[in-house]
């Protein structure tokens, strides 16, 4: 079912559930992995992903098809992830530096993290980035999205995104160089 067909089917209350099932089938995995890279913990990613789709369900009738359905869903996931991280930081009362300091040991203990040393360094470096910059880096580097789509998801200009990604890459490279002793 194409996006256009989904938009038409959404208007029919009797088909709305079927549309949602299709939506979940198509986007559950990519949305989960995007959120997982943002929040790192599986249970947290699970909660955030579920919230994303519940909100998507509630807002499904408001989707006008002006953007791609995936873009719309990623925007929900982007906002939900940032809100979750902000809330977690407030509750834990930890700074980015403190988080990045403890992250390697946390990830190494995580049974659901199967990265090598390089990947561990990369995730630790990512944790030092501001959340929005991290989100841009994940979407560009891991998801390989175009700047235009990321601009729609984040509500930022393409130029600002390019600059943000460049800064993020530079920070990560510097972090790895500095922490090369791992």
């Amino acid at each position, binding site marked *: 079912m194409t996006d256009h067909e989904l938009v038409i089917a959404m208007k029919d209350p009797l088909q709305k*559930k079927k549309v949602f099932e299709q939506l*979940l089938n198509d986007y559950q995995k990519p949305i989960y*992995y995007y959120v997982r*890279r943002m929040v790192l913990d*599986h249970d947290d990613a699970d909660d955030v992903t579920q919230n994303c789709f*519940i909100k998507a*369900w509630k807002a499904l009738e408001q989707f006008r098809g002006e953007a791609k359905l995936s873009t719309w869903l990623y925007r929900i996931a982007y906002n939900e992830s940032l809100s979750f991280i902000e809330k977690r930081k407030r509750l834990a009362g930890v700074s980015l530096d403190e988080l990045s300091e403890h992250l390697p040991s946390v990830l190494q203990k995580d*049974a659901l993290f*199967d990265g090598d040393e390089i990947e561990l360094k990369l995730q630790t470096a990512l944790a030092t980035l501001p959340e929005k910059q991290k989100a841009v880096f994940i979407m560009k580097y891991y*998801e390989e999205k175009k700047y235009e789509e990321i601009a729609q998801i984040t509500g930022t200009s393409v130029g600002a995104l390019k600059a943000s990604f460049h800064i993020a890459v530079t920070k990560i490279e510097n972090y790895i160089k500095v922490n090369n002793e791992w």
Partner: protein
Amino acid sequence: MSGKINPFKIPDDYFEQSAGEIFSKIDFGNEAFFEKQKQLILAETSQKKEGRSIVMWASVWSAVAAAVVAGWIFWPAPAKQLEETKTFAELLHETELNEEEILMQASDEELVLYFSNEIDSLHQDLIKEPTVQTKAAQKLLPKEKEENVDQLLNNLSDEEIMQYLIENGNDEFEIQ
């Protein structure tokens, strides 16, 4: 996902279970129930409307059928009567019975009535055609006004009337 290494693992059947949890948190049941109810109500309303129109059309067609039946029952009767009247009139017109034969079969009273009517029509003719030159006719001519005609007729004797009839070709008649 790109070709990048994915270090993040998930529990077995996670996505299936997670999808189930998402579905359990979304209240499809009520929405589906109310939507179904809505559809049923709309369908029922539509059927009622259709039902009303069927009843209306049934009423119209019943009325038309009743009118046709009534027409079939009652309409032929006057038609037959009219036809019979026409036929009777035509037959009467075509009959070979002439005035003589009718008078021969008539009773005295009928004859008196007949001649009275004849005289009435005669006077009407005289009024309309005052150029009649017969003496009786001249005598019968109204001198003043039409309303005096009846009075004049009353003054005519049988002989005068007979004289008029003889002069106008009706001399074959005999008045008893």
